[in-house]
């Protein structure tokens, strides 16, 4: 599938609560070696909930520090995004474009840094 397709999926918890649409995908370059050349780009987590323009521009996580006016503006508009570990995925409903998660008790708590 393409990432543009994936970005249309929504994520639901085990009890049917809609957590939001996938807005980004976190990738770690440490997967099994393919052809012995490069580490595979393993999808580590799904980012759910719109990070918005602020994230795209780099104001979240403090990479871009200025100008002061924009930094303040964007931190006010910062949306809370949730990070869903790939291991939390229970099953995919490709027709409805929904990803269902495992029961809350079994979920791994993740943040943007971990």
């Amino acid at each position, binding site marked *: 599938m393409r990432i543009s397709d994936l970005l249309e999926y929504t994520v639901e918890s085990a009890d049917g609560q809609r957590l939001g649409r996938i807005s980004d995908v976190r990738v770690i370059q440490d997967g099994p070696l393919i052809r012995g050349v490069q580490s595979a780009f393993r999808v580590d987590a799904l980012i759910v909930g719109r990070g918005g323009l602020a994230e795209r521009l*780099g104001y979240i996580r403090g990479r871009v520090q*200025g100008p*002061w006016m*924009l930094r303040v503006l964007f931190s006010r508009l910062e949306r809370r995004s949730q990070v869903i570990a790939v291991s939390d995925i229970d099953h995919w409903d490709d027709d409805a474009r929904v990803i269902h998660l495992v029961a809350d008790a079994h979920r791994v708590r993740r943040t943007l840094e971990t």
Partner: protein
Amino acid sequence: MKKVLGVALGVLTAIGGFVDMGDLVANAETGARFDMNLAWVVIVGVIGIVVYAEMSGRVAALCGRPVFDLVRERLGPRFGMANLLASFFINMLTLTAEIAGVALSLSLVSSVNYLFLIPFVAFLVWLVCWRMSFVMMERIFGLLGLCLVVFAVTVWKIGPDWNQLFSDAAHPHVPHSETVFTYAYFGIALFGAAMTPYEVFFFSSGAVEDGWTRKDLGENKINVLIGFPLGAALSLAIMASTHLLLAPRHISVDQLSQVALPVASAVGRLGLAVVIIGIFAATFGAALETSLSAGYVVAQYLGWPWGKHSAPRTASRFHVVVMMSIIAAALFGLTGVDPVKVTEYSIVLSAAALPLTYFPILVIANDPRYVGPEHTNGRFLNAVASVYLVILVLVAIATIPLMIITKGGS
């Protein structure tokens, strides 16, 4: 010594290249209608373009990426596409105005109707974009553009009351014959003429192609900090000359020939010849830059190879876009559309579209991943740049309503 010469050449080219059809029309018209009451806008505008050009030049030198390439990458393909369509459309209007300007300047010496000259001019512009050494052409047209200094000579020859002149400029007010709306509209036009976006697309793409690095940052700053303000001084000379000679006779500027009138009147036939050379050089140079910008914005958004230095066959689609743009602009000009009106619309809409490209550059100039941690904007620059962002947004919001209210400035 050679280095100093090189820098001087760069500065002179920047001065001569600052003025284009938009500046000619805007400064001449406002001088005739509003006297010196809008002179302050030129100053505000030149500070803005200095900030904008410095940031884009720095970004281009430090990460090898020109403006439009980064627009898609930072704003995403949707905003990038909207940006592309707006910029391309306005660019087309500007190109039409510049080509018409070249044709008009040639018609002033040949007494051939400018419409007949448009196809010839378009071909010439294309030929230079296609084949000729761009560095050389840039130098030639930049230096020939210095002929516009004859406007400063004109003002000096008229010998105005200098105190009165500066006092008028320093105490602006809305003239009785105008409304606050037309005042604001022409203010926006002047602002858009000073802060032309195509200049920045061209400038940053050129910087990438020329392989600017950290070492070139200093030269960039000098060209921009000295060249542009002196170019703005030339614009103010144009404004002063129409204010002093046309306004008292209630002559308004609605044709390019009237821009040359004060010079002919004060300096005579030699002055007229010089100013026509200057107008030709300024508009031709601008036509080259706008044509290439049309190619740059499309190619950079879509990731095609682009460039003016290497042979055309290494960047086929880029050159096709440039060629098509020149043809389209020439065709539009041939419909007989009023060149002065097209120029007015192009600069006003340029002003309105400025936030679209200024905003991402401002952010990237602050992003250590692109310019490196030591070269992000300093606090003072950020403060000034932020003020300008606010100004640009306000201008953008006000433009269309003002255009409607004033019915295009009449």
